[in-house]
């Protein structure tokens, strides 16, 4: 598997969301396969030095989105999730968010090559 999660405690985003976002990114990129067992809430909380509830919140979010199955005594198991088919308006809303984010990154001086690599990595 080899996937890691990297958080910044000083970032504006809440920590649980950083964890959830990164695990989601790893899942949709296929870096973690269906059926794999993720680190337990306890393992991740100990490694990151965070309250268990923070990690549990991230896992609950991903379980609600259909990515994970949470079982007591087993931990978090990655599900074989079928991508939903959002309506066109919803897809356009995501596309606009992505455009704005890319524009913000370009304005901040992030190179096109890095942006391209990052998008390809996620896709």
């Amino acid at each position, binding site marked *: *598997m*080899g*996937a*890691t*999660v*990297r*958080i*910044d*405690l*000083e*970032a504006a985003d809440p920590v649980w969301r950083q964890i959830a976002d990164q*695990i989601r990114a*790893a899942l949709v990129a296929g870096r*973690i396969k269906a059926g794999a*067992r*993720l*680190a*337990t809430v*306890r*393992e*991740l*909380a*100990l*490694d*990151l*030095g*965070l*309250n*268990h509830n923070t990690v549990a919140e991230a896992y609950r979010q991903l379980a609600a989105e259909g990515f994970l199955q949470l079982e007591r005594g087993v*931990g978090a198991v990655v599900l074989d999730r079928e991508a939903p088919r959002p309506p066109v308006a919803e897809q356009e809303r995501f596309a606009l968010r992505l455009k704005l984010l890319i524009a913000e990154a370009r304005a901040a001086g992030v190179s096109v090559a890095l942006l391209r690599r990052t998008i390809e990595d996620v896709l």
Partner: protein
Amino acid sequence: MSDIRQASLEHEPVRLPGGFGLQAGPFAILAIGALWLHRHFDELPARLPVHWNWRGVADGFARRTPLAAAMPLILGFAIASMTLAMQFGLRRSSPRGAMRGPSLRVLLGAEYLIALLCCGILAASATSGRLLRPVLVLAFAAILVMLVATFVALKGIPRPPVRNPAAWRGGLFYVDREDPALFVPKKYGGGYTFNYGRPLAWVILFAFLIVPLAIAIFAAVNAR
């Protein structure tokens, strides 16, 4: 200042080294010592040497009572139990990393050393000091082997990044009430230290200092 932390998403179950068989070894050694003591109690000297001066001459004695005779084994059992508890604590309540496995093995080795040392003390006492010299030689050799084994086990392990730099006091004491870890890698490497922000750390520390001392004082008082 940003506080970046990273962790693997892989699930890595950790078991105590050696399984039940090796983990039970130190207690089996102490149990064999207890069995031997039970069978040979009547053959022990009426006054058991419990302290020797630097020349190897006994200068402290206790009356032969079951408690006084068994004291080295009781002490060994208490220390080995606490060391086993440390293994459980390290397994369950420390961050994952390359250092955890070797550290658990070092603790198991320490349990064997403690069990053998305590049986050696029993042997020296039960033979009125006749076995003191060989016991001392073997004890020093065992301690030396243990030190070398510890060095070898921990050598070459990459030092993990410093955990929560703001939580270190004087570079030695880690205090973070928000951190669920009871044991954290030392700031400058070479094993683990307590997270003093967790009340359980103080309880364990207190137990490690007080329990052996209390047993020794209890034994000294009862030996008079």
